[in-house]
C-alpha cells in the first residue's frame, strides 16, 4: 500500500533521513520506533509532502507522492495526524471535525461521519461546541484522530499519539487505534513509547540517526534483547 524506497531527506547540511526503505501492506499496523531525532517525524512529514525529499521514492496505492502537491495527498485516502495534534484551537470541536472533511467533494455525508466520530469519541460529542483550545491533551488527541477520520482515509499516519498523555489516556488512545485497524484502516505509527507501539503493531522498523537498523515482526522485536535494552528499559 505504502512503499518508501531509498529515501533521503536533509535540512540544509544535516541529513535527517539516510536512505530508508519501508513498506506498509494493506490492513497492517506498522510501527516506526526510535529515539528523539532518529528521523521518525521527518519520514512522516516527507510522506505527506510537508518536507521535500532529496532523493528516493514514495508511492501510495500506485501514486507517486513526491510529485503530488501536499494538500492533494489527503484526497488519495491518506490522513496524517501530526505530532502535537495541531488541532485548530480557535475553532470549536465540531468545526475542527468539519475541517477534516474539507477535502471531500461530496459533503452530504457530513452528519453521518460526525455521528461515527462521536460514536468513537463520546467525549467529543459532549464538547462539540467548545473551542478546541480548551480541551485536555487527551481530548485534543481524540479530536485530531476524529478529524483525520472525517476525510475517509484508508491509511492514517500517526505521530506520537501518546505524547504527554496520562497512562490511562495512552491506553484509551491505543485501544482506539486498534479499533480503527479493525475497521480496515492501515496505520503507520511513530512512537517513542516503543512498548505500546510494538504491542499493537504487526510489524515494526527501528530507526537510528536516519537509518533503519532493525525490522521485523513486532512480537519478535518486543522480545529482542537489543530492542529491550535500548527502547523498552528492560
Amino acid at each position, binding site marked *: 500500500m505504502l512503499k518508501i524506497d531509498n529515501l533521503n531527506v536533509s535540512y540544509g547540511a544535516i541529513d535527517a533521513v539516510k536512505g530508508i526503505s519501508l513498506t506498509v501492506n494493506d490492513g497492517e499496523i506498522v510501527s516506526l520506533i526510535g529515539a528523539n531525532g532518529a528521523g521518525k517525524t521527518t519520514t512522516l512529514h516527507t510522506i*505527506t*509532502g510537508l518536507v521535500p525529499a532529496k532523493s528516493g521514492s514514495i508511492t501510495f496505492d500506485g501514486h507517486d507522492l513526491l510529485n503530488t*502537491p501536499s494538500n492533494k495527498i489527503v484526497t488519495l485516502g491518506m490522513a496524517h495526524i501530526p505530532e502535537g495534534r*495541531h488541532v*485548530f484551537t480557535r475553532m470549536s470541536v465540531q468545526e475542527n471535525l*468539519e475541517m477534516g472533511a*474539507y*477535502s471531500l467533494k461530496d459533503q452530504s455525508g457530513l452528519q453521518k461521519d460526525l455521528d461515527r466520530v462521536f460514536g468513537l469519541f463520546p467525549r467529543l460529542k459532549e464538547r462539540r461546541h467548545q473551542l478546541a483550545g480548551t480541551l485536555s*491533551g487527551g481530548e485534543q488527541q481524540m479530536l485530531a484522530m476524529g478529524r483525520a477520520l472525517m476525510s475517509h482515509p484508508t491509511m492514517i499516519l500517526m505521530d506520537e499519539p501518546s505524547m504527554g498523555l496520562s497512562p490511562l489516556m495512552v491506553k484509551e488512545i491505543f485501544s482506539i487505534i486498534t479499533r480503527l485497524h479493525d475497521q480496515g484502516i492501515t496505520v503507520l505509527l511513530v512512537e517513542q513509547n516503543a512498548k505500546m507501539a510494538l504491542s499493537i503493531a504487526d510489524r515494526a522498523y527501528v530507526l537510528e540517526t536516519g537509518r533503519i537498523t532493525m525490522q521485523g515482526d513486532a512480537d519478535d522485536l518486543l522480545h529482542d534483547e537489543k530492542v529491550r535494552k535500548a527502547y523498552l528499559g528492560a
Partner: protein
Amino acid sequence: MDSQIILFISQIFNGLKIGSVYSLVALGYTMVYGIIRLINFAHGDFIMVGSYALMLIIPLMIAMGLPAWTAIIPAILLCVAVGIIVEKAAYKPVREKGNSMTALITAIAMSLLLENGAQAVFGADYQTVPTIFHLPSLSLGTLNISGDTVLTIVLGIVIMVGLQLFVKYTKHGKAMRAVSEDKEASVLMGINVNSTITLTFAIGAGLAAVAALMYCAAYPQVSPMMGAMLGLKAFVAAVLGGIGSIPGAMIGGISIGIIESLSKAYIDTLTGGIITSAFSDAIVFAILIIVLLVKPTGIMGKNVGEKV
C-alpha cells in the same frame, strides 16, 4: 432640539462615516496579518489605486449612460488584480525565502512603488473625482445627515456583517481561519494554502476599493499620497481593535472615526484653546498608545497561550 445636541449627533454621524471607511481598510490589514503575519504597508495605497480608478472610470460610465457608482465594479476588479500581483510577485517569493523582516521591508517598498508609480503617471497634484452619488439628505427636524453619510454607514455595516458570515460559515472562510491558525494542519486537511492567501489579499484589496468609493464620495479628490495617512490610521484601527481580529478591525475603525470627529469638534473648547483641532491625529495616536499600555493585544485581541 438644542443646537449643541444637534452638533454632537451630527459629529457622531461624521465619525461613523469616516470610521466605516477606516474599518473597511483595517479589515484588509487585519486579515492579511492574521493569515501570514505580515503588516501589508502597501494596503493603504490600494485605496489610492481604487480612487484613481474611480476618477478615470466614472466619466466612462456616465458616457455609457450608467450611474457613476457602477464604476466601483471595475475599480474593485483593478484593486483585486493589484492586490494579487503584489502578493504573488513581491510577498510570496520573500515569504518562501526570507524572514519576516525582509517581508516587512518588501511591504514598505511596495507602498513606495505604488505611491511613486502613481505620481509618475498622474503627477503629484490633487485631482477631483466626479460626484459619485446624488442622494437626498436625511432630515430629522433640524438634524441634517447627508445621504452619502447614511449610505457609507449602511454599506459599511452590510459588508462587515457579510464578511463575518463568510469567514464563519463558508468553506473558503473556514479555510482562511484554518490557515491563519495552523498552516501545516491546513495542508493536511487538503487546503491549498497559497490560494487561500491569495484569496485573502483579493478580499482585502476589494474592500479597499469599496473604501475608496466611500472616501471619494465624501472627499472627492485624489492624490498619490492619499493612501498613506488613511492607511496609517486604518492600521492604528486594526491594532487598536486587536490585529488579526475581524470584529476588532470594525470596532477599532469606528472608534478611531468617532474619536477623530469628536476631537476635531470639541478639543479646542474643552482645553480652552491649548490643544487645537489640528491635533486630532495626534489624539488618535495618543489613544492608541494608552489602549496598548492597558491591553497590549488590543480591544478584541486574544492572548492565547500556546499548548505544547
